[in-house]
């Protein structure tokens, strides 16, 4: 019932800046949809139009079976968690939670019960009588979620709710929110979620599906595994995955085998994949994830040779920053496989995992190797 449908949605700001270019998106009842994209790509604008905080200048939004374009935010059956939480600073946690119900003139005992239940779920019972400024970041975050939860909305909206937390808290809140979502779903409550973030890790770990946006347009909507393994374009490929996928400018020639010329070096890939590329040559971007490059044994051929400019020890892994002419690559090596003596005179030779290589048209960014990697 709480299906969210967006049709040809447009937003033109008062200064006639067109922020959203007619996007369409369906979020199923109970689905956890993540909107992700770089800063300024209109994630917030879209979310705020759903919430009713921005006027819609084109297209329509449906929640359940109602068109909500002209409804006030309070009437749309949505809850929202803001990036800075927007807790009412002058109200105790208890009143912050209860505010929405109080406005609906629910009876006192009902409000109290609901508050207790939510506080219980989120383990914030001991905080009920504190003011927001007496909360740590993680606690404030949970209160903000509680405030959204208590209203039992049709649709939950989150705008970068974790980006103000430190790394450890971020990781644990991530799990909490997805757990909560699953529980609501199990309990049969409406739990459609639209979650905005610019952190690809969050997107990957939390979303049932992910909608990658850029400059007010949708680049790809898919589940995390598809997005990671089969990015439809260079933008999505570069955005999803950490560290970023290495995208190297090169020239493609399909001639029996696949050959890519990068700077002054040439990489060849077996003939068997060649036939399935949907182009036969041209200016391309060669995409390889840092985890898909390994250090070549000294006798291996068909490797890229480069200069190690920087090494980061990450505990379990080591990041190598390698410069090949003017291309900078990142390589992730498990600590136990990293032996500093492999690198002589700062030089290193790298071999990409062939099955994990993507080729993008340099001009349009389209992934021309999708069928090859199927």
């Amino acid at each position, binding site marked *: 019932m709480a299906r969210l449908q967006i049709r040809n949605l447009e937003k033109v700001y008062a200064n006639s800046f067109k922020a959203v270019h007619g996007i369409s998106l369906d979020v199923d009842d109970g689905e956890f949809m993540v909107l992700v994209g770089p800063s300024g790509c209109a994630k917030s604008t879209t979310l705020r139009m759903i919430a009713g905080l921005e*006027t*819609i200048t084109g297209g*329509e939004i449906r929640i359940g079976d109602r*068109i909500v*374009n*002209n409804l006030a935010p309070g009437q749309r059956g949505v809850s929202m968690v803001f990036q800075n939480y927007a807790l009412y600073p002058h109200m105790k946690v208890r009143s912050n939670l209860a505010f929405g119900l109080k406005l609906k003139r629910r009876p006192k005992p009902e409000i109290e019960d609901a508050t207790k239940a939510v506080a219980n779920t989120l383990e914030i019972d001991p905080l009920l009588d504190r003011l927001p400024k007496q909360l740590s970041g993680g606690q404030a975050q949970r209160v903000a979620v509680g405030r959204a939860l208590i209203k039992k909305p049709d649709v939950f909206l989150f705008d970068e709710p974790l980006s103000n937390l430190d790394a450890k808290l971020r990781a644990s809140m991530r799990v909490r929110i997805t757990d909560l979502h699953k529980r609501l779903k199990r309990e049969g409550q409406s739990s459609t979620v639209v979650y905005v973030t610019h952190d690809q890790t969050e997107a990957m770990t939390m979303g049932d599906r992910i909608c990658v946006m850029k400059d007010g347009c949708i680049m790809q909507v898919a589940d995390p595994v598809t997005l990671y393994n089969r990015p439809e374009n260079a933008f999505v490929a570069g955005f999803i995955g950490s560290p970023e996928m290495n995208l190297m400018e090169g020239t493609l020639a399909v001639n029996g085998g696949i050959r890519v010329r990068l700077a002054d070096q040439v990489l060849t890939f077996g003939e068997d994949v060649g036939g399935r590329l949907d182009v036969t040559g041209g200016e391309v971007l060669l995409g390889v994830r840092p985890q898909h490059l390994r250090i070549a044994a000294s006798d291996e051929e068909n490797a890229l040779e480069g200069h190690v400019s920087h090494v980061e020890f990450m505990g379990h892994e080591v990041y190598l920053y390698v410069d090949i002419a003017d291309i900078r690559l990142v390589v992730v090596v498990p600590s136990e496989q990293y032996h500093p003596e492999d690198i002589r005179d700062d030089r290193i030779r790298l071999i990409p995992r062939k099955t994990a290589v993507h080729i993008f048209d340099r001009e349009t960014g389209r992934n021309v190797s999708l069928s090859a990697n199927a």
Partner: protein
Amino acid sequence: MAEQITVRTTPELESARTLAEGRRMHAISSAVRYALLAGVGFLMLYPLVWLIGASFKTNTEIFANPGFIPSEPTLNGYIQGWKTSTPYTFATFFWNTFLIILPKTIGTAISCAAVAYGFARFEFPGKRILFATLIATLLLPNVVTRIPQYLLFRDLGWLDTFLPLWVPSAFAGDAFFVFMLIQFLRAIPRDMEEAARVDGANTLQTLIYIVVPMLAPALISVCLFQFMWTMNDFLGPLIYLSSVDKYPVSLALKLSIDTTEAFQWNRILAMSVLALVPALTVFFLAQKYFIEGISTGGVKG
């Protein structure tokens, strides 16, 4: 075919309708807002309009005709009023006002900024008591301190000079402003000041190079308030100045009003209009900064 077309256009029509409806509601609410603003705004502006209108009337018409459009407009009020009944023109009085306002405003800004900085940013012995006296000075009606104050300035030899009119202000004597600046300072985070200290600034340099610029908007409002209040202050100059050639505008305006005699209303109104010009101009020029300024009291971190 026909069916297909209907199916396709219905949602478009619907959404076009919802959009139009949204726009109409918006238009209505903003029309209401403007009507209200303009209505009340007229009440606010009416006296000014009346004043300007009346200053172009003849003396007899001023009280006979309550409207603000003069029936026989005349510049007489301005010409006669400007000349005054003294050997000086109003230019002298404007100049005198300027000579009072300038040091007073600058002195206020400097001293209040320093004092507010001291109160807001430092802990020192006696701070609470001093702050209490600051508030207390606001509370006593100044009618009863007037004579002792006069005697004080007499003993300082400052009578018939501009000094009594601005020197106390230059010693942060206007508690209202100090209090106000303290409030604003408390809303500004200290990080920038700490950064400056690490950069090698001492507290005075920090005040000058960092605090004052960030407080500038609030300081400007202090200057504006001080400007306007000084422009209007009549009693101070009346008591402390005796030489006509030192009179400021506020005093000069009442120079020819003798209730036991007939007097020329239109001259007085005309000069009142002129006396408002500086304040109006200054406010209008500064108001953007003035109003924005106070709001940036909490400069973003």
